[in-house]
């Protein structure tokens, strides 16, 4: 673990959230500073994706307790689109298909909306075309991507690349990647990871949600958190992910119970 004194981008305290009355998140604490990459690992149902959706402001989830501070603002006071405009980006685990809407049109509207809110300049269709093609090279995407309907008929790998392309266009402060590695073959994984690495800098931060170590071979995290039953039960450096890979989640659970026993 390195010591980082960069400004705090995200500060989550005792976060509880529920969906339809069922509590999923049961007290999450997490601090993310700019320049950092955090990996969140955990079994299915541990609350990883819920956490991602709550950060992005999904309307189905209700925060019942705790706070989220983002760039010195109360994130919970912002609507979903305001969060996006302020630089919170979620790469979806299952990107949504929008039939009839051309990818280029969608990307340009997203780009221009966000740019305008941030006080930047809008791009007309021709300027945007040049701009987006440059970004697409990074992800080795074919130009016909632009003409197809958003995510419609895309392969799993194409959808994930399209997510990272959007991240490249919108230049988030906080990028949350929800199982971006799932459904990718090794070649696609390398391209996507390369894209993400390219976008990381000292002014932004990334939260990677994943089941597997293999993504972390390509995008090396500064911190690894293990989630279970709606809480982060262990935090460590990148070596924690390796230990998990070797020993499994059961090992952590035992360790934590042991630790808990000692402390009382």
């Amino acid at each position: 673990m390195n010591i980082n004194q960069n400004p705090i981008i995200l500060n989550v305290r005792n976060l509880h959230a529920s969906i339809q009355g069922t509590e999923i998140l049961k007290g999450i604490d997490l601090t993310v500073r700019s320049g950092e990459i955090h990996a969140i690992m955990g079994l299915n149902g541990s609350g990883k994706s819920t956490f991602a959706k709550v950060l992005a402001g999904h309307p189905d989830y209700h925060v019942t307790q705790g706070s989220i501070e983002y760039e010195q603002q109360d994130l919970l006071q912002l609507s979903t689109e305001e969060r996006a405009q302020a630089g919170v980006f979620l790469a979806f685990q299952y990107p949504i298909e929008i039939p009839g809407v051309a990818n280029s049109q969608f990307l340009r509207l997203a780009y221009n909306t966000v740019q305008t809110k941030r006080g930047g300049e809008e791009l007309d269709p021709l300027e945007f075309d040049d701009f987006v093609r440059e970004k697409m090279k990074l992800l080795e995407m074919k130009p016909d991507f632009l003409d197809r309907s958003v995510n419609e008929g895309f392969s799993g790998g194409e959808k994930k690349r399209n997510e990272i392309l959007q991240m490249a266009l919108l230049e988030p402060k906080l990028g949350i990647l929800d199982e971006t590695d799932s459904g990718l073959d090794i070649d696609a994984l390398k391209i996507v990871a390369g894209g993400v690495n390219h976008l990381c800098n000292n002014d932004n931060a990334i939260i990677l949600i994943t089941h597997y170590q293999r993504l972390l071979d390509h995008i090396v995290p500064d911190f690894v958190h293990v989630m279970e039953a709606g809480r982060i039960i262990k935090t460590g450096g990148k070596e924690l992910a390796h230990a998990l890979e070797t020993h499994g989640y059961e090992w952590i659970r035992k360790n934590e119970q042991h630790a808990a026993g000692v402390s009382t």
Partner: protein
Amino acid sequence: MSAVLQNLVNQPYKHGFVTDIESEIAPKGLNEETIRLISAKKNEPEWLLDFRLKAYQKWLTMTEPHWQNVKYPKIDFQAISYYAAPKPKNKLASMDEVDPELLRTFEKLGVPMHERAALAGVAVDVIFDSVSVATTYKEKLAEVGIIFCSISEAVHNHPELVRQYLGTVVPVGDNFFAALNSAVFTDGSFCYIPKGVKCPMDLSTYFRINTEESGQFERTLIIAEEGASVSYLEGCTAPRFDTNQLHAAVVELVALDHADIKYSTVQNWYAGDENGVGGIYNFVTKRGLAKGVNSRISWTQVETGSAITWKYPSCILRGDNSVGEFYSVAVTNHYQQADTGTKMIHIGKNTRSTIISKGISAGKSNSSYRGLVRIAPTAENARNFSQCDSMLVGDQCGAHTFPYIQVRNNSAKVEHEASTSKIGEDQLFYFAQRGIDAEEAVSMIVNGFCKEVFQQLPMEFAVEATKLLSFKLENSVG
């Protein structure tokens, strides 16, 4: 019911059925006297009076159709006054007097400034634009021999043409509402494109409607002679208010050999408020006869207004190799009901038809596609392709599809595709996560859904229609 049928001329019963020639408003109710009065007021020739009376006799024997998928209280046809002399609109002195809601709508739709004043009924001398445009327009058309005028004018100036074609595509007894229209129609448009003439511009009713009211029983007749072609635009995207609740129009198109008629409509009559109070009942019969070989009739409609829409623009493909097309977008919101579609009647050899229908329902509205494809025994090698897509916005609306297919010739090829989709919360969340609010998201999804139809509209109309759709669906989600 009479409370619902708030007619402009809904005045207390004064003179019984005694015809008062001096009166500018006919007494309520429909009988032979009323029809004779209308005909006399308009100074019509005998043959047209006979046409009206014949229609009226037919109408008496008919009953109002009830097969359509719409509900409305019973209409009392004897509580309507069928004739009011055209009177000048009540002009407002300045834009300040215009209903702010209306101005907001114009703003949203991007209606040009000078048109806003005209549409809102403001008496501004600055509205020279539409006048001068209309004049140059008429001169240009006259040069190539095109006749474009009101049907009343045509009855007097070109009686032989009107007499030859009126009622040949939609016979007087075609259906209940067409019979009613044939008996009592007051005005409408007439358009004649002579042999071999390609109309140099899109003909738009916009320039006509501002000068005279066509009333609730509008009648339109368009004739394209051999080798002629015309693109006709009906309506405008700005909201149209009318105190007449029942509208029953008839449109007839005739295309002779190698002729081509393209008829585009944007219908934005008052739809009632968000609680379903008020709004126009729009019962329209539109039909085109592709009479000659290689002729083509193409309907494009964007239906967004009216409390009830009952409308099936159809093509009778009589000429060999003739082509029929129907492109439709129907949007319903709040408590609107639309039952719309087309009929493609294949009679000639190698006739082809295409149907693309997009229905969008939001709020508590209901939208139905109803279409007939009929291949007659004579229609060798006829082809039809139909695509009917429905989109639901929210979970309290309905979409229905009623396709009827009758094939009586083995060589026919008929295809029907249909789909139903819903704008999902997930889609809206995806847009929102990219910084785009729900209103823009819905607009983008819906316009993507309607793309194939909008491509058929003349460019400027298409731009307006796109805005109109977004406007209609404003606040329909979230």
